[in-house]
């Protein structure tokens, strides 16, 4: 046991440095972008078709693209997506970049966006129609109805599933190790390879992941408390 504590004392600072240098930035940037994709996709997929036939046809096509995007990223493994973008595309000379960082952020954000869009879509459709009608009856435009009434109410409902996505993403950034990013998990592998304390090192890195995800879970708790001030 003292062995483990000594190991922890020695390597936790290094693991934290890797967390702050790679794991957390990857998580935060990818989640922010992912949220942006998710809201856009959810809005498109829950939009009603306009009366105008041409506008309706155009929207139908955009809806198709949005549905395809969600299907694509949910139906294939994250690690395969990383390999395709980082190794596959450059090999076929169709990549505009060959940066592990950009590849990782691209894949993580699109992947999270696909899952989160379903959470947000469900939250949007759970806002009662009469809330929208009330906003419309005040003379609000379609976008005003969404920004002022539907999205604020949907945001509260989507906090638990979105927290799931965020926590999942933080752990999934460990997969960035397969595309050469020396994030927290990759670092622990490298250390274990040199000091042979394999079990202890992996337990240590697991605890560091648990530390950060627990902070997120606590944050979720307070966010839920704050936003539930207007609900029973």
């Amino acid at each position: 046991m003292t062995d483990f504590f000594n190991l922890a004392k020695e390597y936790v600072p290094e693991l934290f440095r890797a967390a702050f240098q790679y794991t957390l930035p990857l998580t935060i940037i990818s989640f922010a972008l992912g949220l942006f994709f998710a809201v856009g996709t959810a809005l498109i997929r829950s939009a009603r078709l306009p009366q105008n036939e041409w506008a309706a046809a155009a929207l139908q096509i955009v809806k198709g693209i949005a549905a395809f995007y969600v299907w694509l990223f949910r139906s294939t493994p994250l690690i395969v997506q990383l390999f395709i973008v980082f190794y596959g595309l450059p090999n076929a000379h169709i990549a505009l970049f060959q940066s592990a960082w950009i590849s990782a952020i691209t894949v993580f954000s699109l992947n999270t966006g696909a899952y989160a869009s379903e959470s947000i879509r469900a939250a949007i459709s759970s806002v009662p129609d009469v809330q929208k009608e009330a906003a419309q009856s005040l003379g609000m435009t379609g976008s005003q109805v969404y920004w002022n009434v539907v999205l604020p109410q949907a945001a509260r409902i989507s906090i638990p599933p979105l927290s799931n996505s965020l926590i999942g993403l933080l752990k999934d950034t460990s997969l960035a190790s397969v595309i050469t990013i020396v994030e927290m998990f990759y670092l622990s592998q490298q250390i274990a390879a040199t000091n042979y304390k394999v079990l202890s090192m992996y337990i240590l890195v697991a605890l560091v992941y648990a530390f950060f995800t627990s902070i997120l879970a606590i944050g979720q708790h307070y966010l839920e408390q704050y936003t539930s001030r207007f609900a029973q």
Partner: protein
Amino acid sequence: MITVKNLTKAYRDKKALNDISVTFPAGKTTAIVGPSGSGKSTLLHSLNLLTRPTAGSMTVDDIAVDFSQEIARSKVLEVRKQFGMVFQEKALFTHLTVLKNLTEGPIKVRKMSKAAAEEKANALLQEFNMTELANRYPYQLSGGQQQRVAILRALAMDPKYLLLDEPTSALDPELEAQVLRVLKKLAESETSMIVVTHNMTFAQKVADQIVFIDDGQLAFQGSTQDFFSSSEKRIEQFLGAMSF
């Protein structure tokens, strides 16, 4: 005055409203009555275009709308600004306090300053003895309070016409009375109101005009007195079914 001509709302296999021609005078209270599912709510929702009729036309004061054509977005918004609407229930914005429910429309739609909108909202709350509710959220209100706040939210927009869709049908009798007293007060101050209601006592006491919709058809339009003393079979049947 609102003049509706030959309004029809057809769904694929049935007509919810068929060839309705009716007028709603300004400064008066009109009660729209009829059996459940007869189309009275659809008629009310057609006036501020929350429902789009499939044929017919209407004029709201000097704004003309042709239902058989696509209605421009700007015209839809213009029409809606003429109306305030109160729904059956649960239509207050749940994420906003009472005060913010009252200022949301004036600030976002009428582009009033926050201070001016709040001043107006507070004046309304004071006039209707509800100042103590200003900072509560809708879930903290009784059903009757919610509906009275909903009425004020509509009034805060200075609508020319107030539309009410069964505003008391979800309430217990004593809460219903609170809301009806507010409506009576508004009727006495010559607010133009169009109320869909099941409450015949209220209709008889407060309405100047009755519009009776039966199975998607206009079955009667006329004074309240004429309606309740009518010997027409359909009206007698309806009123008979409402009493016990």
